[in-house]
């Protein structure tokens, strides 16, 4: 039996309107990682996804590609990231998930990476280029040894049968990619997407579900939350970071997150 971690606690206490916010570590400035996390928590989000920048992010659209590039140019690396996160649990209590691509982790050393995650208080991982079979064959044992939960993605193309298999091997939440798309590619939620959300909703899967990709404002967040436990916002949040000045960063993050939740935010003026 696994010991409960922050992800379990969150979903035990909250089944609706869970808001997960993604941003890229070391962006907009190298040392912004932990301050941005603190501001996300203060703003009222429920999960923090910290992007580990990579030179070749194939599942990401232009906004996150650009934030990856800037973070790398700023000097971000996994070594640097773990140094920054070393003290985060003094100020951040939300579940923290690292999201990124496999190659930097392999180079860092998978076991050492997992050990570091546990040491600094990371709860889980989202690795878009780690499919289920490879996870089971190569990564599951070490992730679980260090108490790390793995989140799988599913898309409108994923068969019911495969969704059920993924559900069976999940111990976190299921990341429902909202459409055929890379991140930030489309905005808003169509009827076709709602039918997909409903189809998945009726499969009776065990794990909580969060909807991501193309969620950018109060309206899309609310719609997505109707069909799942909540939603994930990445590109739209990166745009807020991009547009903020160093002085306004904290405040802008708070306003954005409150706006996602209560609808009182004028996105057009910021994004």
């Amino acid at each position: 039996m696994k010991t409960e971690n922050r992800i379990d606690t969150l979903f035990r206490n909250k089944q609706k309107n869970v808001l997960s916010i993604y941003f890229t570590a070391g962006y907009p400035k190298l040392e912004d990682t932990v301050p941005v996390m603190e501001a996300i928590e203060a703003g009222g989000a429920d999960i923090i996804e910290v992007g580990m920048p990579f030179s070749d992010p194939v599942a990401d659209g232009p906004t996150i590609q650009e934030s990856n590039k800037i973070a790398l140019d700023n000097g971000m690396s996994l070594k640097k990231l773990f140094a920054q996160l070393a003290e985060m649990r003094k100020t951040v209590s939300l579940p923290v998930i690292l999201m990124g691509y496999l190659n930097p982790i392999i180079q860092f050393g998978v076991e050492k990476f997992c050990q570091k995650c546990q040491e600094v208080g990371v709860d889980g991982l989202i690795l878009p280029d780690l499919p289920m079979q490879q996870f089971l064959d190569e990564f599951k044992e070490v992730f679980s040894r260090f108490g790390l939960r793995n989140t799988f993605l599913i898309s409108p193309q994923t068969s019911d049968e495969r969704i059920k298999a993924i559900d069976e091997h999940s111990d976190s939440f299921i990341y429902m990619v909202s459409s055929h798309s890379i991140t930030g590619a489309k905005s808003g939620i169509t009827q076709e997407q709602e039918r997909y959300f409903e189809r998945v909703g009726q499969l009776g899967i065990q794990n909580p579900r969060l909807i991501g990709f193309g969620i950018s404002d109060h309206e899309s967040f609310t719609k997505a939350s109707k069909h799942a436990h909540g939603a994930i916002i990445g590109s739209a949040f990166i745009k807020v970071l991009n547009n903020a000045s160093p002085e306004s960063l904290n405040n802008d993050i708070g306003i954005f997150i409150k706006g996602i939740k209560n609808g009182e935010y004028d996105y057009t003026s910021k994004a």
Partner: protein
Amino acid sequence: MKIEIDKNGFYGKFGGAYIPEMLYPNIEELRDSYLGIIEDEDFQKKFYDLLKDYVGRPTPLYFAARLSEKYKAKIYLKREDLCHTGAHKVNNTIGQILLAQKLGKKRIIAETGAGQHGVATATVCALMGMECTVYMGEVDMERQKPNVERMKLLGATVVPATSGSKTLKDATNEAMRQWINNPVDTHYIIGSVVGPHPYPEMVAKFQSVISAEIKKQLQEKEGRENPDIVIACVGGGSNAAGAFYHYYNTPGVRLVAAEAAGLGVSSGKSAATTALGKLGILHGSRTLLMQTEDGQVVEPHSISAGLDYPGIGPVHAHLFDVGRGEFVAVEDKDAMKAGVELSKLEGIIPAIESAHALHALNQIEYKPDDVIVINLSGRGDKDLETYIKWGEY
């Protein structure tokens, strides 16, 4: 050790399919159906008829007398440069477009570096009346302008990849992103033995016509199917995979792969993956990869755009790993000299990619009576500007 792919798509410890879930259905469909489709009799007939009547196969296995005299060996050139569109790339695009039709796909996307694969893809799309979009690094579009125009003339849309180093790897990233965005009606024709399983093996199979022909032609000319040495250049490695394929498990045949050393292996401006790469994952497969200590992919350099790739096909990583392949790193200047030399000695202007394979003759040991086959993967017309800039001829 037998060189072959296992059921999970690995050659030894290299290969696999590390892809975002959004592409899983496409990759699964290909993996489960490609062998059945391409081994079907009707498919084979269509494929070989097109290779014969449209591509101009078999390509000659030409005994290069003056080159042989100079290097004191029996040197044959496998003339892939005489294929329609000017390089071996079309062998694969013919195969994949027939496959795409069988899968009911309506659109084709492709990445290209030097533009040879893009041209070969645009060509078969014109032939079959299919919509074609080719992603090409902005830097490569600049240095391979004639190929950009050829693709447009053939009816393709060429989209610049503007991220990262703006070369082949970035074009591949962009093509993968667009496939994620259009998974249902689109087939992605990958141009080399890279990418997620089953691409590396599938592309190698289409290219294996090269070594199948070599065996037959060498039998006619030398009374033996097997040369002592086969030499080919390797970027991703599709022409090498094709030239080596039927010799992988014939130990008496030495397999020599010429990588691009750029300005020198330790110059920081190189694309010599086996010399510089470490185990990593890029574009869906686990292979040797040029990368920083932090696991960021480095921007490779070669004078030839077709070898300018930071990884290497997983089968080649495996050949290197188990010692079945001999890898040599050929510098820009040496490749250029070899290209000029072949032009003067044999009246054949090679692609600069292929010139790397030619120069390997100077970098390996062999016996005077050895039969050596060099895969002349492409012709040098597209490189005229680079030859002119080089100037030493």
